[in-house]
C-alpha cells in the first residue's frame, strides 16, 4: 500500500484521539469514584443504580418518619406507666379508706388526694405528642378528655409505614386505657370514689376496689400494647438500618469503580499517550528531507 503523509498524520491523530478519549474517561472514573457516570456507560447498571437509589431514599424516609412515631410511642409508654402508678396509689388510698378504723378526717384527706390523682391522670391522658393529643385517636387537635373526664377522641389508630410492606401502630388508645370501651371508665370511677370518701362511706369505698383493679389492669394492658409496638418499631428500625447497608453495598457493587484499578488504568493510559506522542513525532520527522 502506498503510504502518504496525510495517512501518517491521520493515523497518529486517530490513535492519539482514541487514547485521549479513554484517558478522559479514566480520569472521570478515578475522580468520581464511579464506574457508571451516565446511563450510556452501562445502561443495565444505570437502571439498577436508579432503582437502588430510590429504595435507599425511601428507606431513609421511612426511618425518619418512624423515629417520630417511636418518640410518640415512648411518650405514651411513660405516660401510661405514670397512670398505672396513679391507679396503684388510688387503690392504696381506697384500701385505707375502706378500713373501718380510718377516721372521717382520714377519708376526707384521702378524698382530697384522690381528686388530685384524678387531675394528674387527666393531665397524663391529655398529653401532647409530636402530632397533637397522644390519646385522642384522630382528634389530635383537641384534648383527649374534657374537664369532666369524657372522652373527646375516637378509636382511630395511627399507623406508619415501617418498611416496604409493613406498618406499625404508633399511637396508644386513650379509649381502651381510660374509658368503658376498655372495661371501666377510670375517671368516673375516681370521681365516684372521691364522692364515697367525702361521704365517709367505707362500704361504698370498698365497692370500688375491684373497679380500681380493673382500671389499673386496663391501663397496664394498653401499656403492654404500646410496648409490643415499641418492640416492632425498634425491630423495623434495625431492619431498615441493615437494609440501608445492604443497598449501599449493592450500589457500590453496581456502580463504584475499584480505586486501584482505575488508578492503574489512568497511569497506563498516561504512559500510552506519552509513547504515542513520541512515536508520532518520530513518524512525522521521518521523510526524505532528512537526507539533506
Amino acid at each position, binding site marked *: 500500500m502506498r503510504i*502518504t*503523509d496525510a495517512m501518517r498524520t491521520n493515523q497518529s491523530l486517530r490513535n492519539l484521539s482514541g487514547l485521549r478519549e479513554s484517558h478522559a474517561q479514566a480520569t472521570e472514573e478515578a475522580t468520581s469514584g464511579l464506574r457508571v457516570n*451516565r446511563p*450510556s456507560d*452501562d445502561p443495565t447498571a444505570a*437502571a439498577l443504580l436508579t432503582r437502588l*437509589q430510590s429504595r435507599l431514599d425511601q428507606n431513609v*424516609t421511612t426511618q425518619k418518619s418512624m423515629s417520630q412515631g417511636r418518640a410518640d410511642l415512648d411518650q405514651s409508654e411513660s405516660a401510661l406507666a405514670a397512670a398505672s402508678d396513679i391507679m396503684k396509689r388510688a387503690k392504696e388510698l381506697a384500701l385505707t379508706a375502706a378500713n373501718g378504723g380510718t377516721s372521717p378526717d382520714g377519708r376526707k384527706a384521702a378524698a382530697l388526694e384522690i381528686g388530685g390523682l384524678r387531675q394528674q391522670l387527666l393531665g397524663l391522658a391529655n398529653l401532647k405528642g409530636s402530632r397533637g393529643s397522644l390519646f385522642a385517636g384522630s382528634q389530635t*387537635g383537641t384534648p383527649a378528655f374534657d374537664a369532666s373526664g369524657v372522652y373527646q377522641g375516637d378509636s382511630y389508630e395511627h399507623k406508619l409505614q415501617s418498611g416496604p410492606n409493613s406498618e406499625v401502630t404508633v399511637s396508644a388508645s386513650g379509649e381502651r386505657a381510660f374509658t368503658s370501651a376498655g372495661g371501666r371508665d377510670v375517671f368516673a370511677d375516681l370521681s365516684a370514689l372521691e364522692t364515697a370518701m367525702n361521704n365517709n362511706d367505707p362500704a361504698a369505698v370498698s365497692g370500688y376496689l375491684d373497679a380500681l383493679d380493673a382500671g389499673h389492669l386496663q391501663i397496664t394492658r394498653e401499656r403492654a400494647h404500646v410496648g409490643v409496638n415499641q418492640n416492632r418499631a425498634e425491630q423495623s428500625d434495625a431492619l431498615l438500618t441493615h437494609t440501608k447497608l445492604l443497598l449501599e453495598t449493592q450500589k457500590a457493587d453496581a456502580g463504584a469503580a475499584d480505586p486501584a484499578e482505575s488508578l492503574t488504568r489512568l497511569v497506563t493510559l498516561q504512559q500510552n499517550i506519552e509513547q504515542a506522542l513520541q512515536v508520532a513525532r518520530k513518524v512525522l520527522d521521518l521523510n*526524505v528531507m532528512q537526507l539533506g
Partner: protein
Amino acid sequence: MGLSSLFNTARDALNAQAYGVSVTSQNITNVNTPGYVKRTALLETRVLGREDYGSVAIAGLQRNTDQFIEGRYYSALGQTGAAQARQNQLTLVEASFNDISGSGLSSALGSVNDALQKLAADPSDSVARDTVLSNLSNFASRVNTVGNDIANQKSDMLSQMQNVVRDLNRQAGEIANLNREIVHAQAQGLDSADLRDKRDQVLLQMAPNVDLNIVEGEDGAIFVQAAGTTLVEGTEARELTIGLAPGGDVKLLAGRIGSSAPSDVTKSLSGGKLAGLKEARDVDLKETAAEFDQYVYDVATAINTQHEAGYGLDGATGRKLFDLNLPGAPPAGAARALTLSTDVAGQPSRLAASDAAATVPGGGVNATNLSKLFDLTVVSGGTRTISEGYSDLVGSVGLKSATAKRETALRSTLEGQASDMKESMSGVSLDEEMIALTKYQQGYQAAAKVFNVIDDLMQELLGILR
C-alpha cells in the same frame, strides 16, 4: 538531421523537466489541501519523422483517482455523519435522565414520598402539608422541564435539518455549475484537474450530510444521487425541501425537473447527518417522549386516584393532586402538561391525609396509602413500581445512547479505513515528491548540458567556417 534542430530537442527536454518540477511543486504545495488529488506529469516521446531521432512531449496530467474508492469514502462519511448526529442528540437526551448523581427526577419523586410520609406521621402539621405541596409542584416542574427539553430538541433538530438541506441545495447548484465548466474545458481539450478538485471538495462537504452516490459520465459531468433521488444531473440541480408529515414526523421532499410537485423521498434517506437527525428525532426521541408521557400519566393518575379517595381538613373528598390538560388522547403530552391541581394549589389544608371525614384532622391513612403507592406496581400497565418504571426509562435512554456511541465508533473506524484507501490512491507523499523533484532537477540539468554541448558544437562549426 541538422544541428539547429537539436536545439529544439534540448528545448523540449528543458520544457518537459520544468513541467515535471511544476507538477511536483503543485503536489507539494497542496500536501495538506483537503480533497486535493495528486497529479502525475505525463511525458511521452515525440517522434520527429524518423525513429532514431526524437524528443520529449508533455502529454498532460493524470489525476490519480478511483471512482469506486471515492464512492466508498463518501458513503463512509455519510454513515459516520449519521451516527455522529444521532449520538450527539441522544447524549443530550441522556443528560435529562441522568439520575446517577441523585439530582434528577427520581430524587424529586423521592422528595414527594418523603413529604407524604411526614404528612402521614403528622397529618395535622401545616409544615408537612406545605412541604407535600411544594414537593409535588417541584416534581411537576421537573417533569415539565424534561418534556419541554425533548420538545425543544425536536424543533432544534428540525431547523438543523433545514440548514443541512439549504447547504445541500447550494452545494448541488455549485456542482451543476462545475459540471458545466468541466464539460466545457474537456470539450476544448483544456486541463480540468483544478475544476475537478473543486468539485471533489464540494462533494466532500456534502458527503457527511447525506447518502451520496456519484456516477461520472463520458463528458466529465457527474450525476449526484442522494436519498435515492437524482440531485444533480449534468448542469441541472434539484431542490430538496424539509416538510412535516401529519403525525409531526419530518419528511424529505425532492423537486422534479419540469414538475411543480416534489416527491417524498424520506424512505430512501439512508445516510448522512440528515438520516441521523431523522432517526434521532422521529424514532429515538419520539419513543422516549412517548415512554415518558406514559410514565408521567401513569404516576399522576395513580396519585390522583388515591388522593381522590381521601378527605381534606375541611372534610371534603374527591380532589385531585395533579391537573393534566392534555392536547389530545392520553397520554400524549402528559409530561409537558403536568401541573399541581387547582384543587389543592395554595390550599395545603385540602390535602387528603385522612381516609374518612370522621378521622380528620389526625387520621393519616390516606397519606400512608399515597406513600405506599411508591411500593405498588402502578405504572407500565400495572407491572412496575414508580421507581422501577423510571429506572426502565433510564435504562432505555442509556441503551439508545450507548448503541449510538458504539455505532459512531464503528463508523469512524470504517471511515478511517476508507479514508486511508482514498489517501493511498490520491494523496500526496512528500517522499515521492522530493524524489521526483530531484529527478526532474537532474533531468533539467542534463538537458541544459545537452544545450551547452550543442552550443559548443555550433561555435566549433562557426569557427571552421570563419
